[in-house]
């Protein structure tokens, strides 16, 4: 089930979300081999960072909560990864983050030289004191960071990853489009939320708060993609709670071009990409239509 995304041919309309598995090249390759059309690296930061102590990720059954806290070797300490990237035969998104426009620019400048197929700007992470979400909730800040990065990366297509916490996510998407983004990825985790253990009277996550993902956030993700589709002409990676082919079809009908998958790896294994692709394919066959036919069909 080939699809074209910003000029690249993908073997499936499914995308591995950033921060799921993507800690090294080998596992990205395994995910690709499991039928994933486009794999995203764990978000890369300007300097080495450990992230938070455990507990960092808890499964709630109908979704997950996490505050991993943007661990990263830092873009300067990933020679092995950059070398591996050079020998790849499948498309990769490099996700990056920073605490300022300067940092985003600096990381993007370096990373674009390593020639990933796309660079994703994580302007939407709730799990750090100072990175990300601040940008993604302000149209002007979103414009600024995308615009600044666009200047340095020149040809690498840019994907802006947005947060559902934005009051008007359509407006943010439009600002990113104006700033030079080539696509939108939505959504990052929702909330944040908090779990308190009542026996020890302690928040369970070491960072106390964490972002929600998985099936429970899907209605919000679908609404966000719907709003973004209305507000821009950019292709959208619809992400948030997708677990089945039907979920992916729903996201496409909201306006997505590709279907991102994160937490579902937990619920259906790494083969979830193959499974979702097969289920989508079957559905399209049963209904005698193509992905193009149904994109944005719910509008």
């Amino acid at each position, binding site marked *: 089930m080939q699809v074209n995304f910003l000029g690249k041919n993908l073997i499936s309309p499914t995308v591995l979300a950033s*921060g*799921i*598995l*993507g*800690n*090294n090249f*080998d*596992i990205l*390759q*395994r995910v690709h081999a499991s039928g994933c059309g486009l794999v995203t690296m*764990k978000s890369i930061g300007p*300097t*080495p*960072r*450990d*992230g938070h*102590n*455990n*507990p*960092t*990720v*808890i*499964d*709630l*059954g109908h979704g*997950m909560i*996490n505050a*991993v806290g943007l*661990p*990263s*070797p*830092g873009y300067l*300490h*990933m020679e*092995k*990864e950059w070398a591996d990237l050079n020998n790849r035969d499948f498309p990769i998104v490099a996700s990056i983050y920073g605490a300022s426009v300067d940092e985003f620019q600096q990381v993007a400048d370096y990373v674009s030289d390593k020639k990933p197929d796309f660079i994703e700007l994580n302007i939407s992470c709730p799990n750090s004191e100072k990175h990300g979400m601040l940008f993604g909730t302000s149209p002007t800040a979103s414009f600024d960071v995308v615009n600044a990065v666009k200047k340095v990366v020149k040809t690498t297509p840019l994907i802006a990853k947005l947060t559902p916490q934005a009051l008007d996510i359509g407006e943010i998407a439009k600002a990113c489009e104006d700033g030079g983004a080539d696509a939108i990825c939505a959504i990052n985790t929702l909330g944040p939320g908090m*779990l308190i*253990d009542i*026996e*020890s009277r*302690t928040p*369970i996550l*070491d960072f106390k708060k964490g972002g929600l993902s998985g099936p429970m956030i899907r209605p919000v993700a679908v609404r966000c993609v719907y709003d973004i589709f209305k507000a821009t002409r950019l292709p959208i990676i619809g992400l948030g709670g997708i677990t089945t082919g039907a979920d992916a079809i729903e996201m496409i009908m909201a306006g997505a071009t590709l279907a991102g998958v*994160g*937490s579902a*790896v*937990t619920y259906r*294994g*790494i083969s979830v990409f193959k499974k979702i692709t097969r289920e989508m394919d079957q559905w399209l066959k049963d209904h005698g239509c193509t992905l193009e036919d149904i994109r944005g069909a719910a509008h």
Partner: protein
Amino acid sequence: MNKPNLTVEKKPIMFRVDRTKRETPDHVTLFFNGTIQFRPGQFVMVWMPGVDEKPYTISYHGPKTFGITVEAKGRFSRKAAAMKPGDLLGIRGPFGNGFDTGTGERVCVVAGGCGTAPVAPLIDMLGKDITLIQGARSRDLLLFKERYPSLNGHYCTDDGTFGHKGFVTELLEQAISTNTFDMVYACGPEIMMKRVFDICEKQKIPCQVSLERYMRCGFGACGACVCGAERVCIDGPVFNSEKLRQMENFNQKALLKSGAEVPLSTYASWRCGENISTTN
């Protein structure tokens, strides 16, 4: 309140330490009242509120009780080893694949140091013709020495205070030369795991070894624990010969907390608290 079944619950379930047992000067077992359905080799994430959460193998299990055995080394494990009955810990799990126990009659179990913890319930369950090879730094650090009196046990210590003076791998080679094994199970430091694997490969005996990496989620989502393309938490922690043959990073590379891939020795230094920044 009745404790929910651990295999269903996903949040940490809070247990009060029921009793503790000092196994050796370095090792303490914490016992909990509760049922847990698990396979030997599986682990649980143990949360000490306000401190951290770490993976520990289930080392004891009874119909209404289970236990983990902690080697007091670093910040977390020292606090854990010092816990008293009534202290609270959160338990998530069990996670991981565990040992495949459906393989042949004559087995050899090789355990080094704290690696004895995961193989103990394996021995409990196997009930086969078992040869145990166990090593430690010194006599008093031999974990569970009295736990299997009827077992065909071979021991070694670094200082020669008990059994053979030397390595478990030497005892393994010896045992293999006089026995036929259908399967070798092993748990211990990764360098020892590699030697066991090499010996078994040479002798064409299949083996299963348990590995260790820094873990976050424990259930295959975050990728913190990857060894090459394998997630130690869910594809492992037990890997068989077939897998090991393809794992280039076995005994070679590991990720630090930051995700940086480093030589295993660097990782071990970090783990051994030599104040190497985890973000290298």
